[in-house]
Structures are given as structure tokens and as C-alpha cells.
């Protein structure tokens, strides 16, 4: 089976990889680019652990083929911090202990950043609906929501 050559931009860096037509973007990120932040939970678009943005649109990378990333811009959790300085959401998640096992955390951070980029002042209901596709099996939702609401308030004050 012939491999497909893909050129794409991930977290601002131009990258290239060879993939099988059936390989997902999630597999390509993890196995070819060593970006293991996005996790495979369900593999069928239900759990959101593999959330990334593709041309600024939040998607499940398990439901995108690697080949579809050709010429696109991909952002993953690895691109959130600037060097050693964490993104305000990451900082606040630590402060609020808004994670237990941590598997869902990268997906939730990426999804939440996409929300705040679009809507800096969401209501709690809007945050909960936006994150309906990000499952946390430790059911630590409440601290996550509180961390997000507090980050959003801080970011609004800072801007």
C-alpha cells in the first residue's frame, strides 16, 4: 500500500510525514510527530480526549485522516504554553486542581481555549454545553468549570 506524503503546519512549525490513507490525524500526531498530548479515548468522536484545532476549528483528531491535514494548520495542547510559561488556562487548572487522572485534560484545555478565543465572556451554561463532547471519567467537571470561569474573568480583566 502506498503512503501519502503530507505537509502541514503544527503549532506554528512546518512538518512533513508519510502516512497510510487509513491513519488518523491523531495517530500521525502521536506516532510520527511525537506529540502525545492528544489522547485516544474512544476513537469514535464521543469523548473529546483527542481534541485539536484544524484551521482554527475544534475537531476530534481521531475523526480526521492524517491525509486531510495537507496544507492545513493544526494546533495541539503542546502549542499552548509559550516556552516555560504556561497558558493562563493551564496555570488555573493546576491552581484549582481541575484534573484527577489527567487523560481528558489536554482535550479540555484545547477545547476551552477555542471557546475563549471565540467568546471571552461565556456563561457557565455555555461552557458546559461547549464541553459536552469532552468526557471526564473521574467526573471532576465542577473544578474544571470553576477554573475556566475564573480564567475567562482574569483574561477579560487583563485585556
Amino acid at each position, binding site marked *: *500500500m502506498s503512503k*501519502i506524503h503530507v505537509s502541514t503546519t503544527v503549532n506554528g512549525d512546518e512538518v512533513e510525514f508519510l502516512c497510510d*490513507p*487509513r491513519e*488518523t490525524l491523531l495517530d500521525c500526531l502521536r506516532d510520527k510527530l511525537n506529540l502525545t498530548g492528544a489522547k485516544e479515548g474512544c*476513537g*469514535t*468522536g*464521543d469523548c*473529546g480526549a483527542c*481534541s485539536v484545532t*484544524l484551521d482554527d*476549528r*475544534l*475537531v*476530534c483528531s*481521531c*475523526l*480526521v*485522516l492524517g*491525509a*486531510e491535514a*495537507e496544507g492545513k494548520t493544526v494546533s495541539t495542547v503542546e502549542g499552548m504554553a509559550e516556552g516555560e510559561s504556561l497558558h493562563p488556562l493551564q496555570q488555573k487548572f493546576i491552581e484549582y486542581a481541575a484534573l484527577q487522572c489527567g487523560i481528558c485534560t489536554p482535550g479540555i484545555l484545547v*477545547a476551552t481555549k*477555542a*471557546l475563549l478565543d471565540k467568546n471571552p465572556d461565556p456563561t457557565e451554561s455555555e461552557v458546559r*454545553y*461547549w*464541553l*459536552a*463532547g*469532552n468526557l471526564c471519567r473521574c467526573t471532576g467537571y465542577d473544578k474544571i468549570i470553576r477554573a475556566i470561569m475564573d480564567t475567562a474573568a482574569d483574561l477579560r480583566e487583563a485585556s
Partner: protein
Amino acid sequence: MQYHTATSYENAVELAEAAQGTIRFLAGGTDVLVQLRAEIVTPDVLIDIKQIPGAADIQCLADGSWQIGAAVSGAQLDEHGTLKANWPGVVEAMNLIGSTQVQGRATLTGNLCNGSPAADSVPAMLAANASVTIIGPDGQRQVPVKDIPSGPGKTTLKSGEVIASVNLPAQSASGADAYLRFIPRTEMDIAVVGCAVSLELDGPKIAKARVAIGAVAPTVRLVESAAEGLIGSTLDDAALAALASAVRDACDPINDKRGTIEYRTHVAGVLAQRAAKIAYQRARSKS
């Protein structure tokens, strides 16, 4: 599996005609890739139509009608203020499907082609009297959405045919639509019952009506008898009772863990009344 990126719909049809084995067209992939990964359907050839010029565009034509490209996502519909004001029912139906992540990819065309009787956007498209533009080996044809579903997971599309766009008619100045579905939770579930109503008013009276139901028959259904009962009324209690009764008569649901036959049939009548009230209010508030 081979993966192709089509450059035009004609090119997509050529690729499909030249292909051997199972073919799937790829737009949002929220059904096709799930089926591929679950090994339910493993295509031999996958033809990506997203790069086709216009495939991801929403266009309002000179006569006020809408052309929604086959690769337009639910999120794009939600962000389009004018389309949402014209056809709120179609947009709210599409936006009920899946999560934010799924909305970033899922399309009206894909929801229709997947052939699920429980597809949320299909009753809304039927009520809106939408059509699709199909391109195939024999050229182009325009088909009402109501003629596409033919059974669970089945459509009337012929081999090698691809849908290029969903077309919504121009909305009347006194018209509006609405869609409601019932699920046991608030988000991320498959319809137990869905119902769409589209109305056009003449003063307080209903001049035109279309009612469609989902998840209560082998295909999404247009219920003409339910629409007839609404026409000429001001959506009074008698009209609402007749609506519920006509909708229930049109139900032929399955019995499963999501709902019994009796339950689904009852809820279909309730949802039809509620959706009609919302559509009526929306249309009244325009005048």
C-alpha cells in the same frame, strides 16, 4: 484503501466510476470515519470532496434561496446570522448533532446520505422543502430531500452519484420553521423522536405548512395530513389536537431500549405541537 482529493464534482464522479469495490465520499467524516474505524464499512476508495471549489460555501442566491455546499459544517451554519434568521429550524436541527467537535466537521449532506431514520437535520430539511443537487455519471439533477431516504441506512442515490449542495427555498416574509427532538439527556444523544414544522402565515392564519417526523419510522417522513389540518387555522386548540393525532397516525416506530412504540408515538404528537407553536411564534414576530 485509496484516498483521493477531488478537484471538482465531475472529477469526483470520474474517480468513483473508475474505482473498484466499496466507495465512500468524504466530507465531514463524522459517520464515514467512525464506520471505517469500527470496521463496519471499510471503503476501498475514499474520495474527499472538501477541496472542491464552493463545497464549503454558503450562498444566498438573487431570489433569496440558499445553496449550502456539501462540505459546509454545522458550525458554519450556526455562525451565519442571515441563514439562521431565515431557516432557524434547519440550523437548530443541524446544531443538535453531536458535540462542538462534531459540529466542526459534520454536514447536512452527510447527515442525509448516512440514511439514519433518526438524523436530526433531515426532518428540518423536509419541512423546509429543501432539495439537493446531485452530480453523477448521467449529469446533474435536482431532487427533493424527501425522495432521498429509502430505508434505515439506505438512500435512492445511484452508484457514482454525489450530492453537491443542499438547496433551501427563499423564506417567505411571513414564514418560519422549528425543530425539536426528544432525548433522555440534554446533549450528545440520538433522537428518540424528532419533529420539524415549517409555516407560512397570512395574518394570524396559517397559509402553508409542512410537518416532518424523525426516529419514528424506517425513514424520516413528511406528514402531509398533519400539514393539511393546520392550514387555515390560527393554531388553536382544535388545530393542535388534529396535528398531534395526524402525526401519531403517521408513526411506525421500532420498539427498543431508547423508547417503546407507544412512547415514541405519544411523544411525536407532543413534539409536533410544541414545534408548531415555536414556528408560529417565530413567524408572527416577523410581522
